[in-house]
């Protein structure tokens, strides 16, 4: 009797594990608030879920080109927040982000955007110089300049916390990399200071690219 119970438990555990692992590879979660919306389709009531998405925005990149939400239509992208004179976590984040850049720089449907949280110092020429020194070129990785208000506002949409600590003008911010899909929904957040999490981000981008929603989106 005891043996049978044991065997049963083992089988139950095994199938639970198996279930978990297949779920993992199939689809990434969708993050953020969600709301059920009821609408009428073909005369029938249908309840759908809407997910929070990144709202419209307008910033300027290191080439002084205007970058808006439209520039990212049909693209999977990763967003983060930094400043060029950051003495603490930014060098680590961008050492890790460079791996993401190298992996996907040939893919025109992929972008990285790094918002500066110190727009006063990090003007467009300063961002260009930073990009040059980082050895990044082309349009894969945009360094974005905007007003402080716009930048701090959009950080909230990415669930990233950014603050200015006065009076020293120091900044405190999370080192998160946020993965956004072609529908501008949040699909993952990763600690950009941890190489293992950034490796996971690279794997998740590959997974995301194969989802039907992403393959079919323009």
């Amino acid at each position, binding site marked *: 009797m005891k043996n049978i119970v044991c065997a049963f438990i083992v089988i139950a555990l095994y199938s639970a594990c198996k279930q978990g692992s297949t779920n993992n590879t199939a689809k990434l979660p969708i993050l953020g608030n969600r709301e059920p919306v009821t609408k009428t389709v073909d005369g029938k009531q249908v309840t759908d879920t809407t997910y929070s998405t990144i709202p419209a925005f307008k910033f300027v990149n290191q080439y002084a080109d205007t970058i808006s939400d439209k520039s990212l239509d049909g693209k999977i992208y990763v967003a983060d927040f930094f400043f060029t004179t950051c003495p*603490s976590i930014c*060098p680590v984040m961008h050492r890790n982000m*460079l791996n993401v850049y190298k992996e996907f720089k040939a893919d025109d449907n992929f972008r990285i955007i790094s918002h500066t949280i110190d727009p006063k110092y990090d003007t467009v020429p300063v961002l260009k110089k930073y990009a*040059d020194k980082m050895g990044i070129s082309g349009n894969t990785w945009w360094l974005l300049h905007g007003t402080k208000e716009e930048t701090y506002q959009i950080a909230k949409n990415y669930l990233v916390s950014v603050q200015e600590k006065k009076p020293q003008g120091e900044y405190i911010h999370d080192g998160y990399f946020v993965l956004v899909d072609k529908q501008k929904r949040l699909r993952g957040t990763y600690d950009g200071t941890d190489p293992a999490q950034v490796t996971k981000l690279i794997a998740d981008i590959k997974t995301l690219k194969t989802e039907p929603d992403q393959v079919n989106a323009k």
Partner: protein
Amino acid sequence: MKLAFFTGIVLLFIMAVVASCQSEDQVEFSRYYSGGSVIYLAHCQNCHGEKGEGLQSLIPPLTDSVFLKTNRSSLACYLKNGLKGKLTVAGREFEGEMPAVADLSPIEVAKVLTYITNSFGNKSGLINLQQIEADLKNCK
């Protein structure tokens, strides 16, 4: 015979003294070096990297033994006052700014400099507290 025995004892004694001196140096070096590795991790690694590799053209590597040797007596001042302007390290040009690592005490500076000048392919021995104190007096 007696003389040989006596010389033997003296030789042994000298050898023992030399050996114990060496190991005392060794112990001191290890103390600086391992303390330095902890300080490196907390204060330098984010910028200069786990293997002292630096970051692209933004932050220079710590692998240029010749640079470190040539500027050995200025290294303490780089940490105390920060460093700014053009540098040639490992055959490449850098022009950045390292903020002062002001909260390090002289003994911590000695430890972390012992660590970097004996890691990442460098091997130039102990930099002790007395040296650092002298170097810090000559900061520009």
